[in-house]
């Protein structure tokens, strides 16, 4: 990202003050459009009941912040259980997806693998014709996977885009390193662990993030395959926040601990978003490096 020097090149005119001001305003507007909605949900989740009701359902900046909504949500039990499901599902799904994607990408990145080219064509063809919703549903049902967590992982195990990114990245590793490892007596499995993976941390980080985020956010498969008691957080969020059911009516909170519905809704929203916000800064710097080098090379 820093390939362009921050210093203005000699041939470029000095920007006019008006241009500079216009750009500044544009950037501020863009930032505000992204950040204000975040501010609203966090503030509303922290606001007191009275403040929310007085203000008509939302708060931009809480005057008397309280964690009451969070206590309500957590004491209800449903959100905490769903949170556990989501964490386990995301961890297991990311692990399986990352392993299978890495293995396949590595095999397809090496020249002269038996069957490598037909398999690559077979996979690229699926890009042209993605599986339909009904056939996929019948398949899961036919395999007896209804109401299992396998049904949320197996049908989306490998993402072709992630596969191609990783394969491109592996192909970018200099052939000499493979040769050197082979001369040292390493087989393909050992080369993967000792040479390829240590050199591919950026790409692996990005692909893991993509998988983790998609498992964390996924709700559709949960809604059609799982019984409601087994739902992950995203699907709970969907029912209680968008589905319009009031949290107080759903047994989500304990009786007697009534909060304004908006504060609890926003608290669930924050709980569902915070994990993403936590990992985001650490992985953000790899985006350009990992995604583009992989994608461009293929």
């Amino acid at each position, binding site marked *: *990202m820093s*390939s362009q020097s*921050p210093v203005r*090149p000699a*041939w*470029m*005119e000095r920007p006019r003050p008006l241009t500079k001001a216009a750009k500044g305003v544009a*950037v501020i507007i*863009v*930032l505000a459009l*992204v*950040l*204000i*909605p*975040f501010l609203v*949900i966090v503030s*509303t989740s922290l606001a007191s009941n009275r403040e929310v009701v007085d*203000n*008509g*359902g*939302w708060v931009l900046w809480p005057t008397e912040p309280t964690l009451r909504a969070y206590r309500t949500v957590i004491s209800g039990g449903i959100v905490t259980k769903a949170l556990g499901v989501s964490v386990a599902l995301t961890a297991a799904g990311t692990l399986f997806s990352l392993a*299978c994607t890495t*293995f*396949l990408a590595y*095999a397809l990145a090496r020249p*002269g*693998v*038996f069957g490598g*080219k037909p*398999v*690559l*064509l*077979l996979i*690229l063809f*699926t890009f*042209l014709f993605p*599986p*339909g*919703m*009904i*056939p*996929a549903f*019948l*398949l899961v049902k036919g395999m007896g996977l209804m109401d299992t967590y396998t049904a949320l992982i*197996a049908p989306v195990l490998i993402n072709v885009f992630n596969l191609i990114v990783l394969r491109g990245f592996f192909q970018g590793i200099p052939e000499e390193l493979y040769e050197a490892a082979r001369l040292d007596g390493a087989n*393909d*499995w050992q080369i993967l662990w000792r040479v390829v993976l240590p050199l591919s941390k950026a790409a692996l980080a990005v692909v893991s993030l993509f998988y983790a985020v998609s498992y*964390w*956010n996924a*709700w*559709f498969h949960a809604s059609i395959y799982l019984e409601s008691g087994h739902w992950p957080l*995203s699907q709970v*969020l969907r029912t209680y926040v*968008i589905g319009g059911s009031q949290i107080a009516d759903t047994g989500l909170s304990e009786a007697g601990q009534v909060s304004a519905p908006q504060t609890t809704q*926003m608290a669930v929203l924050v709980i569902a*978003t915070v994990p993403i916000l936590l990992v*985001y800064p650490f992985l*953000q710097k790899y*985006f350009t490096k990992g995604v*583009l080098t992989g994608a461009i090379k293929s």
Partner: protein
Amino acid sequence: MSAVTKDRAEIEAVTPPTEPTNGAIASKSRRGERWKRFHRTRVLVLLMVPGLVYFLVFHYGAFIANAVAFKEYVPFDGLWASPWVGTENFSRMFGDPDFWHATWNTLFIAVLQLVFFFPAPLALALLLHSLSSDLLRRFTQSVIYLPHFLSWVVVVALFQQVLGDTGLLNATLSDAGLHTVDIIGNPDAYKPLVVLEVIWKDAGWGTIIFLAALMQVNEQLYEAAAIDGAGPWRRFWHVTLPSIRPIVILLLIMRLGDILSVGFEQMLLQRQSVGPEAGEVLDTFVFWQGIVGGDTGYAAAAGLFKGVVGAALVFTANRVAHRLGEQGVYK
């Protein structure tokens, strides 16, 4: 096809034909070569197995399960024992006004997305690229990539909170003594709303690829143009735009090929708020008919129709790109 031939050429290049006089021995040695190659790369072949099984089962298996589109699906009998009905599902579909309604909504939203969402990342990338402060640019990038990682559930909830009847916007408007606007749950505002949502969520993320393309524009071209007296606008028009044209066309082709998909999760979450008249798209139509309504064969027919048209569109768009002398998605 060409890959296979090339494969064979490679093998033959490595192994000189040992017994050209005897065909049987030559084919035997070729088989031997293949076995050797398998043996030499057996670890890699083994590593391919889990991924290959996944694609065979969940992509090619689903492909075969599309057969249900030509059946009257009876849950008790299962997919294979259900009776064939030929193209009855399709003829019913083509006569179904709800199906055409969903198709119309899909195309309408797709065109709105093409006009307003497609150029948005490009415009943002140009703005970011023109910032002279590295720090400000990186900070802005970090912020605008973020919404891409939020669930559609969160995004839709955010929009309800900001644009709803009692949301931020309307409260501000009424405080200022202005008319409030009816956006959430208003069928007339639905299509612009969903396009606005997708811009908010993904326009920032979309800048990544355009920014990379902008960084790769040859600096000397700008310099030469400036020396020839071209101002910023003319440099933009004659240097920047032609340089990033291939990537813009590539992305446009990919979008055109996918034009019948306008964001299933996003649409499904909000369909109920405005009703099927305004909110049904092809994907939600399949879901509603098949999974909610239990009309499995019929829904599969609609899904298959969408898939076939989509594949044909990718193919056509790619052909057109080659005709125009552009790279395209595949050769």
